[in-house]
C-alpha cells in the first residue's frame, strides 16, 4: 500500500474533550450519504468561431484494454456532525486496479479517517496537510469548516494521485475531475508534477468529469451539449484552443466524449505527452466504459470509497468516543416530542 501515515497523522488531530456534538441526520435506508465534491469549477467561456469545423465528432472504436494495467482513483468526504465551532468529518480514498492480462479488480482503500475541523484549528490543519502533500509551505487561510474538510479530501486524493503516478508504470490512470492547475486548492506545480511523473513512468493519465464550468460563449450552454443528439462512441477535440479565459490553467487537452453509444457525455482532460496517442486512449477508455458510458474502474473506485449510512453511524460513535464528545440534545425534539 502507499505511504499515508504522515498525512493521516496530520489530519487526524485531537480536539479538546467534552465538546458537544450534534450528529448529522442519517437515514439508514439511504444507500450512501451524498456529498458535494470540489469547490465547483469556475465558469469559463469557449468561443464558437468556425463552430462547424472544430466541433466535428470523431468516432471511437472501443477495445477492452486487456493488456493494460488500469488504475482508477476516487475519494469522498462527509460531515459526521457539528461541534460548537466546527465539525467532525471523515475522508476515504479508493484505488481500483485492473492488472494487465486480467479482467478482475483489486482494491486499496485509505480511510476512513476522522478529521476534526474547527475555526481554531482549520488554518493550521490546512497548512499542515498542504505542506505534507505538496512539500512546500503556504500562508493561505483555510475556507469555512465544510470547505476545509473538502480541501482535506482533495489533498488526500492528490497525494494518492502523486504516489500512483510515481510508483506505477505503463498504466492507464483514471482520475475523477479535471487537470486544472493554478487554483488555490491545486497549485499548477503539483498538477504538472502528477502529469510529468505519469509521463516519465509511461503512464497515460485521464481525468474524467461528469460536469464542467466550461460554457459555450454564444449559447451559454455547457460544453457537454456539443454532443447533444450525437450518438457515441465519439469525442470532440480542440476545446482548449477555444477557451477564452485563463487558458494556461488547463494542463491537458480538453475533450467532450460519449464513450458508449447511448451513454452520458463527459469531459475528458488528457495531458499532451502521453505514451500512446490520444485516439488510442479513447479506444481503451471507451472499452472500459460500462453503464451510462462511465469507466467501470472509476465507478468501482467511487462506489468503494463513499461511506454507507451504516458506516457513518459507526463513525459518529467512534468520533464521540475518540474525542470525548457529549451528544447535544436537540432543543426542538425536547420542546416538541411528537
Amino acid at each position, binding site marked *: 500500500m502507499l505511504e499515508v501515515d504522515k498525512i493521516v497523522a496530520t489530519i487526524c488531530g485531537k480536539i479538546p474533550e467534552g465538546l458537544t456534538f450534534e450528529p448529522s441526520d442519517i437515514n439508514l435506508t439511504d*444507500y450512501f450519504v451524498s456529498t458535494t465534491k470540489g469547490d465547483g469549477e469556475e465558469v469559463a467561456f469557449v468561443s464558437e468561431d468556425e463552430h462547424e469545423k472544430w466541433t466535428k465528432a470523431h468516432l471511437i472504436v472501443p477495445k477492452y484494454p486487456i493488456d493494460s494495467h488500469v488504475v482508477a482513483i476516487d475519494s469522498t468526504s462527509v460531515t459526521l456532525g457539528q461541534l460548537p465551532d466546527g465539525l467532525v468529518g471523515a475522508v476515504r480514498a479508493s484505488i*481500483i486496479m485492473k492488472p494487465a492480462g486480467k479482467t478482475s479488480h483489486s482494491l486499496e482503500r485509505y480511510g476512513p479517517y*476522522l478529521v476534526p475541523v474547527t475555526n481554531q484549528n482549520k488554518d493550521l490543519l490546512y497548512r499542515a496537510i498542504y505542506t505534507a502533500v505538496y512539500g512546500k509551505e503556504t500562508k493561505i487561510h483555510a475556507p469555512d469548516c465544510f470547505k476545509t474538510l473538502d480541501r482535506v479530501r482533495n489533498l488526500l486524493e492528490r497525494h494518492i494521485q502523486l504516489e500512483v503516478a510515481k510508483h506505477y508504470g505503463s498504466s492507464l490512470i483514471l482520475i475523477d475531475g479535471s487537470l486544472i492547475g493554478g487554483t488555490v486548492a491545486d497549485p499548477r506545480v503539483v498538477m504538472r508534477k502528477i502529469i510529468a511523473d505519469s509521463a516519465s513512468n509511461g503512464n497515460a493519465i485521464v481525468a474524467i468529469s461528469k460536469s464542467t464550468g466550461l460554457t459555450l460563449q454564444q449559447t451559454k450552454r455547457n460544453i457537454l451539449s456539443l454532443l447533444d443528439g450525437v450518438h457515441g462512441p465519439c469525442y470532440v477535440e480542440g476545446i482548449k484552443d477555444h477557451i477564452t479565459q485563463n487558458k494556461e490553467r488547463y494542463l491537458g487537452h480538453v475533450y467532450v466524449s460519449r464513450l458508449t453509444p447511448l451513454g452520458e457525455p463527459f469531459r475528458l482532460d488528457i495531458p499532451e505527452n502521453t505514451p500512446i496517442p490520444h485516439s488510442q486512449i479513447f479506444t481503451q477508455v471507451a472499452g472500459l466504459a460500462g453503464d451510462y458510458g462511465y469507466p467501470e474502474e472509476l465507478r468501482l473506485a467511487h462506489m468503494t470509497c463513499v461511506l454507507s449510512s451504516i458506516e457513518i453511524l459507526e463513525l459518529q460513535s467512534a468520533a464521540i*468516543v475518540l474525542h470525548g464528545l457529549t451528544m447535544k440534545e436537540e432543543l426542538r425534539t425536547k420542546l416538541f416530542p411528537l
Partner: protein
Amino acid sequence: MYLLTKEADELAIVYSPEEKLRLGDTLTIDGIIAQVVDIHFADLPGVLEHILRKSLVAKAETKEHIQPEVKSVIDSLTDQRLAIAKIRGRIVEVSDDKGNKKKVFKTGLSEFNISRARAEIKVLSQDDLFDALGLCFPSSCDFGKTLSSEPKDFEILAERLGINLITGMKGSGKSYSAKRLLLKLIEKRVLTLVFDLNAEYLNLWKADEKTPNKYAELVKVFTPRLRRAQANELPFFIPLNEINYDDFATFVNVPQGTPTYQHLMQFWRERGETQFDLNDLESFVNRVQNEAVRMALQGRVDAARAVGLFGPSNLTNFITDMHKTGGVIVFNLAQVGRWERGIIVEFVLRKLAQLGQSGAIRAVSLFLEEAQLYVERQNMVNILTRMRHFGIFPTFITNDPRTLPDEVFTLLDNLIAFMFRNEDELRQLAKSGLIDLKSINALKHLESRQCIAVGNITSNYPVFIEVNPQAGVVMGGETRKLVI
C-alpha cells in the same frame, strides 16, 4: 442489551458482539425470565446495500488502511445481534413457613411493565436459575454441562425420572447419552432392563476390549440361543412353567377359543405349580385323541423347539436379586428375528408386570431403543398407562419420534431431545406440551451430544445441555464406516 420488541411470549433483544450471549442462556429483564432460543443478525435498514458494496471487490483482493482508533468500530453495526428470547416466567421472592425468604421460579406473566429504554437485561447465572428452579445437584455431578455463557454441571436426578423420551437424529448422541444415563442409574442402585436391538449395550461392562470396568459385576447380558454362559453373557430361555397357556398360545399363534387353545389350557391346568418343559408338553400332545388338534399342537411344539427360546431359566430370581443391588439386564435382540423378538419382549414385559404387581420388585427402569420395532402399539400403551403403577419407568429412545404413539407424548414426564432438522419431527416433539415449537426449533442448531432437557428433571424449565464424555466404558453404538 436493549429490548426491541415483544410479540406474544417472545422478546427480541438487540446486543453487540462484545456482549456474550448464547443459545440456552437465561436472561433476567427486570424480574422477567426469558430464555434465548435463537440468535440472528440485527436486520438494520441499509445493511444489504452496505454488504453488497463491500462485495464489489473480492475480500482477498482488498487491502485497507484504516485509522487505528476507528478500526474496532467499523462494521460493528453490521455485526449487531438480535436474540429471540422466550418468556418463561418470573423469579419471585417468597417466604417459607419459618419466614425465610427465597427466590422461586413462577411460570406465566400477567404483568408486563418493563421499559425498553431503562430495563436492565442481564444473563442470569445458572446457579441462580437452578436455585429458583429447586434443582439441587450432588457435588460430583458430571452428566453434562449447561450450554450457556457460564456453563454449569448438570445431573439427571434419578428420583425425577418417570416416562422419558430420549430422541434425536442419527449421530446426534442420543444413544450415547442414554448409556450415560444408564450408568448413572447403576450408581444410584437402580435396576434397568434394556431391550437392545443393535447390540449396543453389550460391552458396557468393559473398560476396553480385554478389561472389565467398575460396572462389570452389575451388567448382565441375556442372549437367546446362547449355548452356555460366558463372561457377562448368559443364555436366555423362557421357562414354560413361568408363563401361562395364554402367553404360550400368543407366542405360537394359537387363536383363543379353538380346540387347540383349549388343550393348551388343559395341559397348563393339569401341571399346576409343578416344573415342566416342552418334552412334557409333547408327551401331553401325543395323548390327544383328536388327530387334527394333535397335529396342530405338535406343529406348535416343533416350532417352539426350533425357535430355541423355551427352556429352564432363573430369570425371575435374577431380576429380583439384581433389583436389590441395582444394575443392568440387557436383552440382546440383535440376532433374533421379528417374531422371536416379539416373544422375548412380551415375556419380559409380562414378567415385569407380574413382579411389580406382586411386590417382588419395587421399581425398575426400562430402556426401549426403537420400541416400535418390537413392541406392539397396545403393549406400548400398556407400558405407559398400567405398568407405571407397578413401578416400571420406561425410557424410550428413538431417532424418529413420529413412530411412537401419541400417548407417549401426552404422558411424557421428561424429554431429552438432541439435534433434529426435520420439521415434522420437531412438531411431533412439541406435542408433548413440555416445550413450545419455537424453542424446540433450536434443536436445529445444536451440535452432537448437545440437547434440550425438559420436564421433571429440570422443573419443567428447558435446559440446554452438552453431555459429557464417559471414561472407562466401551460405549459402542458407533456407525461403522464403509471405508476406513
